[in-house]
Structure formats: structure tokens, C-alpha cells
């Protein structure tokens, strides 16, 4: 008998019968672990103390495989990073799969496998799941919704509301790679250049940062809407004014080139492996020690609350506005 992985997803795979059972056992349980199929998982809080963090996110990226990752890796990384942004260690995930009829089960297995890899890397578990199959043409090949529970490990609560005048703003590497990688893959514009998504889990980095004793005032992962949206949110939540320096913001030439060709502001492009970290100036050396590839790109200054300024490459100053809509749909 052929393995289920050589087959295509049928509507019947979502029917709750034997076919579904096989799909779950031979794909999801095998990749993501677990054995008992109860209606709910019982979670043991032994060894977990402190506040819990809970987050949820749906992923509809198109295409589902892109340079640097796939929708499964993205779903777990996105959830891990949302937890990490509040200083929480990821513990448990749930994952719902909405699959379009006709999808290759081998693709589904590859995606489950990359979810498992990131989950293992951060020391968490997938403890609940669901699968639905929709008729061909009624879905986008695969949508995944992931929720995550974590435990807050930072002593001081971290949020977007804690930025203070004088704080430096750090980022852990070049911006805009995820959005541009997906965009170029989707539009068959690989001819412009090969850009690889930065999709990565950031809990390891955040854990080291918290444990180092560095005083983190605010954090946010600049996903949809990019650095522009994340900084505007923090400026507003914290009631402060932010200034960033174009000359200090890391970006790969191929990403900048693609942005200019497409008429997109790289500050508004999604990242999936970046964190904006606000620390007091005295903690800069220790922060840089624990943020691989980190550099300061701006600071919190005296000025109108909620406002974000950019000192441009040529030394002029302009406002960085909250992005209006999605410039690039189905990026995550």
C-alpha cells in the first residue's frame, strides 16, 4: 500500500473518518509528536510559575514555500516572537490547518516538519490541533492558525508602553527581507535578486537578553507594516517621540534595490526574525553583547508624543507615518 504522503488531500480527509485518522497519525502526529487524540490536552503547570502569556495568529502567506522558510515555520516563528516580545518563554502551541482539496500531502508533511523543528528549537510543544479540508478553489492551498501559551520570564513586565526618553532603539539585523522574499517569490520576480526571508524564532535571543540583566523598556517584532508600524505603535503606547537614523538602519543592497524598483518604503516591509528593543543608553554594551547582529538605529527623544521622525540619508528630517494599508497582501 502506498504511504499517505504520496497522495493528494481529498475532501474526505476532512471528513472525520478513517482517511482523516490516517492523515493525522501519519503526518501530524509523526511530525509534531503526541499520541493520544483526546478532545482537549491536559497541561501540567508543574515547574511553571509566574504570569502566562497567550497569543494567536493566522497565517495565509502565498506562496506557502518561499526562500528561507514555509508557512509552517512562519506560523511557529510568528507565535514564538509574539510571546518573546513580552518576555515570555513559549510552552504550548495549538495549530489549526485549513487545507485546500488537492494539496500534496508530502507538502503538508514538509510544513508540519518545519513547524516541529522550530518548536523543538524553542523547547515548546504542539499540544492541540485541528484539520479542515475545503473544496478546490475555496481556499489558498493552506491556511494555518496557531495559538501559543508562554510563561513570562522577565522580572519587569515588557510591553510597547515602557519606552522612555533617552532610550536607544536596537534591531538585530537587516530589515525588509521577509516581505521582499515572499513578494519576489510570488510574483516570479526572482530575476531582480534572490532575497531570503529572515523568518526565525527569537526566544533564544530574548532569553539571553533578559537573563543578562539588561533593562528592556519595550520590545516589538516589526512584522506587518514593518519598522514604521512597530515604532509608531510604541511611540503612541508609550506617549513618546522617536527619532531613527536612515544611515544606521541595516538593509541588504538587494532588498533596498527591490524596494526602490517596486516603489515600496523598506521601513514598511514585514520582517519575521527581527526585534526592536528599547534599552536605556547605559545598557547599550550589554544589550549589544546579547543581540547578535544588533545595532542602534535610533533613540527616544523629547518631542511630540506619538511621533516618529527619520533623519534621512541626506541629513534632512521627515515624519515616518503609520502605514495605511497592506502594501503587500498575504505576506504572513
Amino acid at each position, binding site marked *: 500500500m502506498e504511504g499517505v504522503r504520496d497522495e493528494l488531500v481529498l475532501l474526505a480527509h476532512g471528513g472525520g473518518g478513517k482517511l482523516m485518522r490516517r492523515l493525522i497519525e501519519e503526518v501530524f502526529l509523526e511530525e509534531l509528536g503526541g499520541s493520544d487524540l483526546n478532545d482537549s490536552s491536559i497541561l501540567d503547570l508543574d515547574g511553571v510559575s509566574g504570569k502566562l502569556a497567550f497569543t494567536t495568529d493566522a497565517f495565509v502567506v502565498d506562496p506557502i514555500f518561499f526562500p528561507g522558510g514555509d508557512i509552517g515555520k512562519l506560523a511557529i516563528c510568528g507565535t514564538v516572537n509574539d510571546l518573546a516580545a513580552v518576555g515570555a518563554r513559549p510552552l504550548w502551541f495549538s495549530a489549526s490547518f485549513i487545507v485546500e482539496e488537492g494539496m500534496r500531502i508530502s507538502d503538508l508533511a514538509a510544513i508540519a516538519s518545519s513547524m516541529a523543528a522550530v518548536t523543538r528549537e524553542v523547547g515548546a510543544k504542539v499540544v492541540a490541533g485541528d484539520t479542515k479540508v475545503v473544496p478546490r478553489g475555496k481556499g489558498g492551498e493552506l491556511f494555518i492558525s496557531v495559538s501559543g501559551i508562554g510563561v513570562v520570564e522577565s522580572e519587569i513586565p515588557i510591553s510597547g508602553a515602557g519606552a522612555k526618553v533617552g532610550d536607544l532603539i536596537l534591531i538585530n539585523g537587516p530589515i525588509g527581507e521577509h516581505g521582499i522574499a515572499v513578494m519576489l517569490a510570488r510574483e516570479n*520576480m526572482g530575476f531582480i535578486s534572490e532575497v531570503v526571508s529572515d523568518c526565525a524564532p527569537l526566544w533564544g535571543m530574548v532569553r539571553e537578553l533578559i537573563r543578562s540583566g539588561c533593562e528592556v523598556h519595550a520590545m516589538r517584532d516589526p512584522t506587518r507594516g514593518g519598522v514604521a508600524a512597530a515604532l509608531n505603535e510604541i511611540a503612541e503606547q508609550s506617549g513618546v517621540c522617536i527619532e531613527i537614523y536612515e544611515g544606521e538602519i541595516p538593509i541588504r543592497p538587494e532588498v533596498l534595490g527591490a524596494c526602490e524598483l517596486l*516603489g515600496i518604503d523598506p521601513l514598511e516591509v514585514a520582517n519575521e526574525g527581527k526585534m526592536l528593543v528599547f534599552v536605556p543608553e547605559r545598557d547599550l554594551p550589554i544589550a549589544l553583547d546579547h543581540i547578535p547582529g544588533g545595532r542602534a538605529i535610533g533613540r527616544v527623544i523629547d518631542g511630540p508624543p506619538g511621533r516618529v521622525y*527619520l533623519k534621512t*540619508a*541626506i541629513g534632512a528630517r521627515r515624519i515616518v507615518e503609520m502605514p495605511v*494599508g497592506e502594501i503587500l497582501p498575504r505576506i504572513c
Partner: protein
Amino acid sequence: MMALRGFRDPELASSISKRIWDKVLRPIKIMEVCGTHTMSIARFGIRDLLPPSLTLISGPGCPVCVTSQGDIEAYIGIGSASDNTVLVTFGDMMRVPARGTSLQKERAKGKDIRVVYSPMEALEMAEREPEKRFVFMGIGFETTAPAVAFSIMEAKRRGIGNYMVYSSHKLVPPALLAILSSPDLSIDGFILPGHVSTIIGSDPYGFIPEEYGRAAVIAGFEPVDILMSIEMILDQINSGDRKVEIQYKRVVRPDGNRKAREIMYEVFEVGDASWRGFGVIPRSGLFIKESYSDFDASKAFALSRTEDPPEPKGCSCGDVLRGLILPYECKLFGKACKPESPVGPCMVSSEGSCAAYYKYRVWRE
């Protein structure tokens, strides 16, 4: 960002800026004709480096903005003509409002409307799906017209009969002539479009200094390009020696690109065209020649170009496009008209001057 090439060098920018401050001897108005310049000026904060008596005004060089309401409505109408008609367009057109609807809204209602980055993609769709008719919305100036012309020549050569173009292409020099012949002209000099000039060269702009005595410089799109061009315009004004100069010499040649023009005029012929904000400008549009009429959507769908409907109430896009007012001087700007709920096309297009002014908050706070 990191790619601090010479054309973004802050010291160079600052030294040109200092010279510009010294060379502005009276209030000066300069029009940047092209939407890409408008965007670059706003994005790099170039106004922040200029003296307050030097005003930069946006011109008619945003293809989406100058596309007439009548053309947009006719194009949407083509999509409603039959179920197997697919509208294919550049993304910027999607949100332009047209009497209660837009391409975006039509798509949400179930019409097959697709966004592409080049006309060749539309041609390939037509080849892949022969049971459907694909109608590409041809907008843009001399820069894009050759590529669209080429797609039509390819369709003919490869026998792809289900590919058509609705041509709303426009020419830049006639619009400048319309601006210059306006009685309320107050512009001292023009930053001329770099990409358009790559195709047409510098000769077609000769009337600007010769007949109207205004300064003119063809400029690149980097901040230092733009600052240098402003300085060159000021030098022309101060010396009285008006001419068409090329600052963007690394790309633009005085005679332009002859090959691209040949392709363009193989397929298109010049005719009177309706521009948003201007009305009909003589000999300012490109229309598909009789020899390629099989690929002309306006013929295939028997469209007669009708009167343009009136502008939305209060919308001053027309005055903005003609450089009569600055975007924030429009009553709707930033209030009833924002990028998320645009009233006129200048707030829609990524090259629209209202969108650029709003996005980068270029207005008095």
C-alpha cells in the same frame, strides 16, 4: 540606509543645500513634473534642506492621477460586458474611485481583475487562458508606452487574439505646453522627468526656454540628483541663460532612445486626449493604429469616448495636477480625503502628490 552611494551622501547634499540658500534671490517656484520625483523629494525630506522662499510644486507626471474619469469608467465597463473578460492592470489603478465604484470594489464583487507589473505578464495570461479575453489598461507616459506597444506587436506575431489594450497613454511635452500657456502661470523652472527623457531625449522640451523663457533640467531620482538640478535651475534663472540641461547624464542622452520610439510609433499614433484636471489637450495621447486595431479594446468593445463626468465634489486634484495649488491647500486634504479613503486619484497612486504629501506629512502642522 546602508547603501550610502554618492547620490545620497549627506555632506555632498549639505554643501549643495548651502549653495542653493545663497542662490535663491527672490521667491522661486519650481515644478517637479514627475511623480517619482515627488515621492523622492518627500521620502528624503529634501524640502527640509531648502530655503522657505523656494517652493517645489508637483506636476502632472503621475500616470494614474491624470487618467480621466471617463477612461476609468469605460474600462470598468469593459469588465462588465461579458463574464469571460479579464481586466488586467497596474496595481495603482485598483483603488481609484469612479462614481461609486473602483476596480478594487468590482473585484470584490467577483469580477476577474488581475494586477501585473508588466504588460508582458498580461500577454502571457492571455496565451495560457485562450478561452478568456484579456484587456490591459495601458496607462503611463513615454516610459511605459514602448513596453505596451511591444506586447501588442508580440500578440500579433504570436497570434494571441484574446489580448487587447485600452490605451490611455499620454505624452509629457503637450501637458507642459498646456501648463506654460495658462494665464496664471507662476512657475520659474521645471525639474523634468528622468525616465520619460530616456526615451524622448531633451529636444522635445526646447519650447520651455525658447518660447516661454523658463529654466529646465532633466533630473535623476536620487536626492543629490534633485538638489543638483535645483541648483542648475537657479543658475539658469540668475544668469538669464535659459536652456534645457541634462543633469541625469548617466542615463539620458539628448536624442533619447530611437529604438524605443520606433516600437512606440509602430503601434501608436498621436491624438487628442483627455487629462484629469486639464480637459482635452491637443495631440497629447497615444492611440492604437488601424493596423493593430484587432488589439484595440476601445474598438472591440465599440466604446465611444464620452464626456468626462464631473470631478467629485470638493476634489481639487485638477488644480494640484496643474500646479495651481499645493496638496494641503485642498479643502478635503487629510480630512475627507486620505489614502485609506481617497476622493481623488492624487491621494491613491503611490506617485500621487497628495499621497506623497500625506504619507510624509508635508504640510504645516
